[in-house]
């Protein structure tokens, strides 16, 4: 995985960085802007800004991924503000794009990070975590639906949380806050 911003110096490098991070940047932008076209525009703009500021990137301060997400966060705010003051481009175009503030985009980034980590879990782990924690279903009910003992469900929840921590850390999360 390309972790050095100098990769952006060549066309192949840009393609490699896109292959590693493009889809997740898009998903975050789409989650924030609720508009596919605008989300793709955000990804393009993120790569342009990253290339323009590549001399300021210091990999001792953070990963390329973290740096790209800091850029896309600002791009999303800029695009949402530009979109909020602009009339709809075509009849029927959705007007769900809101003027995002720094706080609201940070909340979305936090939510997206946890959702992305949940997607990274195995089905077995994700199902028990969603059913037990998010749906609030009793362990016994979940065990009955899955056809396994209650103890197995409890054990899976434990390993799901452990896997969740690894996934979150991979996505740049830390438990400082």
């Amino acid at each position: 995985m390309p972790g050095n911003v100098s990769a952006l110096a060549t066309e192949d490098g840009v393609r490699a960085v896109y292959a590693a991070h493009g889809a997740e940047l898009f998903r975050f932008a789409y989650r924030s802007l609720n508009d596919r076209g605008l989300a793709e525009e955000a990804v393009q703009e993120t790569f342009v800004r990253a290339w323009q500021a590549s001399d300021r990137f210091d990999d001792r301060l953070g990963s390329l991924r973290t740096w790209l997400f800091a850029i896309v966060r600002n791009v999303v705010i800029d695009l949402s503000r530009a979109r909020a003051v602009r009339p709809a481009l075509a009849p029927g175009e959705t007007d769900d794009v809101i003027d995002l503030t720094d706080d609201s985009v940070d909340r979305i980034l936090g939510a997206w990070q946890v959702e992305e980590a949940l997607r990274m879990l195995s089905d077995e782990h994700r199902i028990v975590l969603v059913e037990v924690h998010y749906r609030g279903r009793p362990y016994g009910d979940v065990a009955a639906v899955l056809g396994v003992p209650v103890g197995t469900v409890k054990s899976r929840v434990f390993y799901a949380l452990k896997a969740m921590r690894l996934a979150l850390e991979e996505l740049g999360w830390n438990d400082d806050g």
Partner: protein
Amino acid sequence: MTADACREWRGALAAAALEREDPAQQIALRAHLDGCAACRAELDDLVAVARALPAADPDRLADTAQPSSRLAGQVVERVAEVRTRRRRRRIGRALAAAAVIAALLGFGGLLVANLGDDAETTTVEFPASDGVTARADLHGAVHGTEVRLEASGLEADEVYWLWLTDEGGERVAAGTFRGSDDEVAVTLTGALPLADTVRIWVTDEADSVVLDSPVRS
């Protein structure tokens, strides 16, 4: 990591972290934690993860939107465009410096005339917006960018502003014009080199954006 002897407590630790403890097991778990530093540390780790969970919306987990297959190529193209623009700008500055030197040497007219002949031109088709359709021909000139704008659907007698924007977001006014029931055709100039222009847009008297398009020279 919890020692093997503590394996039986794992489910209870996870339940405690999620605040889903079995009341019957709660006292026993507390007693175990009092004497087991490894399980206390394990519980702290699990609680930190559990605290992050409420941020997510589980109904969104099935939403695994992917960008279009064209996006990779578009990203490469956009970066290449900006790279080329920056290179052109450097060349332009070098040529301008050469022109100044040439002028000082007495044959500047010839060099400036040649620069004018090689000036770039690009055409922008604005996305239709609220019944307004427009296109613009942008011509790079020594004094900035000359814009020939043809638009229809604008409000008669409304005053419009034409703007150009550079990569840094700085906007330059290219002038004003009045709308008409007929097609409007105006030529305005903004003091921004075409190579530096990344956006062209029009605002109305209320400062609302009426037309907007990127410029890819």
